[in-house]
């Protein structure tokens, strides 16, 4: 609905394109229509017209579903109404009340999932960043085989998520998985075969898989950042007697700050929202210890078929992420401008 009405104002402001067709045969027709619109407006309107398709698609793909989600969160959208949403009775704030009532079963498990997700995000973003920075810095100078290593490091990122993660899930199987084979039979580090896909270790399994999958992204972006630092800085500092460590602390890391600001934010948002990794790794139902919030919301909507409640949880998640992003951007950009 939104999509079909939006283009009109833009079109009018622009060139009057819709009226264009039939008059074309008249030869001077288009000029007459164009003359009705002041030149200034025509010039100002053009950039907007050009980004119009992007805006329309953005609205369709992102904003409209989001608004629908917010609308759903105020409905009692149970199995009796999922076929015809408009018939669903309003729920007021009831869905939100259930979600934030942490003493209840629903709210309690949402809170637990939130805590797990925070811990997971901190560890995963930290590890991805650390690995990415380390690899980018170590591969700054050119050496034999650098291209091969780069390609190798980027492979997990290039693989389709499903293929990579399902392979990990096979490797983590208790009886026939490679991880236990190495830990128990090959190296004899452990006597008993541990579980990786259920119980407490599932958190570790998820973390390993996720970091494996995502750290190349940090590596890729940071590598681009590192390549942009001028060699002259290093040469000058070397003349002043700065060693490798000093160069890293005083040149590389400060010069990477703007890149880091973006990388950490993007990693945070991806990680906090990650659905694919736990969904594929645990086959749809994540164990409590690795119950990331996106998959938790998905499951709690489907177990009770109450999609209003699931939407309310999603809206809460959206608000939280907006808040964190805003605070992050304000604090980091203030620090950058001061520096």
């Amino acid at each position, binding site marked *: *609905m939104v*999509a*079909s009405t939006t*283009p009109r104002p*833009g*079109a009018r402001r*622009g*060139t009057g*394109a*819709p009226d*264009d067709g039939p008059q074309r045969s008249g030869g001077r027709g*288009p000029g007459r229509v*164009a003359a009705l619109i002041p030149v200034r407006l025509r010039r100002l309107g*053009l950039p907007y*017209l*050009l980004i*119009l*398709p992007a805006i*329309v*698609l953005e609205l*369709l793909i992102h904003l409209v579903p989001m608004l629908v989600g917010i609308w759903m969160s105020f409905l009692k959208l*149970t*199995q*009796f109404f*999922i*076929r*015809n949403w408009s018939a669903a009775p309003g729920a007021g704030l009831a869905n939100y009340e*259930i979600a934030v009532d942490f003493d*209840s*079963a*629903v709210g309690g*498990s949402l809170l637990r999932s939130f805590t797990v997700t925070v811990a997971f995000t901190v560890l995963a973003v930290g590890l991805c960043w650390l690995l990415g920075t380390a690899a980018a810095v170590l591969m700054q100078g050119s050496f034999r085989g650098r291209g091969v290593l780069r390609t190798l490091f980027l492979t997990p990122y290039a693989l389709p998520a499903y293929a990579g993660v399902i392979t990990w899930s096979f490797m983590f*199987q*208790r*009886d026939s998985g490679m991880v236990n084979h190495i830990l128990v039979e090959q190296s004899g580090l452990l006597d008993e*075969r541990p*579980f990786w*896909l*259920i*119980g*407490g270790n599932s958190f570790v399994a998820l973390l390993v898989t996720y970091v494996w999958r995502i750290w190349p992204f940090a590596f890729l972006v940071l590598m681009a950042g590192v390549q942009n630092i001028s060699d002259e800085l290093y040469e000058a500092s070397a003349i002043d007697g700065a060693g490798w460590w000093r160069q890293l602390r005083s040149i590389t890391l400060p010069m990477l700050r703007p890149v880091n600001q973006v990388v950490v934010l993007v990693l945070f948002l991806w990680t906090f929202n990650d659905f694919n990794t736990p969904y594929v790794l645990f*086959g*749809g*139902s994540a*164990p*409590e210890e690795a119950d990331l919030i996106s998959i938790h919301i998905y*499951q*709690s909507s*489907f*177990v*009770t*078929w*109450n*999609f209003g*409640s699931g939407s309310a949880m999603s809206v809460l998640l959206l608000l939280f992420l907006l808040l964190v992003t805003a605070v992050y951007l304000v604090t980091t950009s203030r620090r950058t401008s001061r520096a």
Partner: protein
Amino acid sequence: MRIRKLATTALAGALLLAASACGDDGGSGGPSAEGGAPKTLTYWASNQGPSLEADQEILKPELDRFKKETGIEVKVEVVPWADLLNRILAATTSGQGPDVLNIGNTWSASLQATGAFVPFDDTLLAKLGGRDRFLGPSLAATGVAGQPPAAVPIYGMTYGLMYNKKMFAEAGIEAPPKTWDELIETGKKLTKDGKWGLAVEGASVTENAHHAFIFGQQHGAELFDASGRPQFDSDAQVAATKQFLDLMAVHKIVNPSNAEYGNGTQAVQDFTSGKAGMLMWQSIASSAKAAGMGEDEYGVAPIPLPDPAQGGKQVNGMVAGINMAIFKHSRNQDAALEFVKFMTSKQTQQNLNKVYGSLPTVKDAYDDPAFQTEHIKAFQQILATTAAPLPQVPEESQFETLVGTAMNELFADVASGKQVTEEHIKAKLTEADEKMQAGS
């Protein structure tokens, strides 16, 4: 001039995209239903065989025959059990889905409540040969009593205790266990040298929920009270859950690794490959065949009934099976009905149920001697006498998901060596109960 042309093109493109994105809310592909042109149906089949690919293979000759007879092409997708219910819900919510699909018959009433399926009223049933052509127990699991069925049964099933004859003989066991204590005893005899007494699918929501129901019945538990409120955490249900979990936790006749099994085929593989001597399951004929296990190498016995003195019901199975439904949003409802008619026809019923080792749901299919084998007779006997239907209420699917998930978590606790007490079980089931009430 050029700029204006560009702008026009951009605008037209945007409008076109917008229109095409908004416009299509109909069913799945294929030429539309108008005219006598060949049609295409999309069909979601449930995973009945040893793998998704195997099901494709099994269904293919039947679908080819259907195309030959009617000119209608059926595009089949086999959906794994762990995804099927969610996929159906997503299709219902979005209006984007298949024309025809298989559902677990226990979900009938829940899905009926969504109004997503074409109800099989008497007119439609007449086109399939009438209500009386179908077997009673199967037809009873097609929706709320008194309403037109939301789906029609195509495969009939129930639970039995499969046992490996060779492993039994080697352990000196002469007959399948008749009581629960005997089952544990037998299991202990079989558990040795890396082999186990019994295999379970410990991370499968559906399997766990079915067992919760069957053993719950044995202890006299009712899932919903008279007013329809859930009572998953009754003492009887807790005892039933513990009885099942203890096979792994206390009696140690189940491999703890089974707590990881969740795709609905792994426990069967443990049984057919001889890693476990017993299995409580529905028909496994096609899986056994695929694994090279002959029909005479395993037996089918009833799951032990409880001691009548203990109270509870004499139940050792559930009315299981697969129903077939037509999506209301399908643009090819006539062709879809044609396909349902084909799937419930005598010939197709015989062909497919023979492969799957399940029971035909129409009476006229039983004249084939293939349905007089020992295994089939054993299942028939259980279904006719000691199988109970799951409650046909709209909340049934939620019971399966909530209680099944709770049991997945309990199995995980048991496997990782945690003490699973009755309080622990009760707490989990109470949580399931509360979630059910919060969601409704």
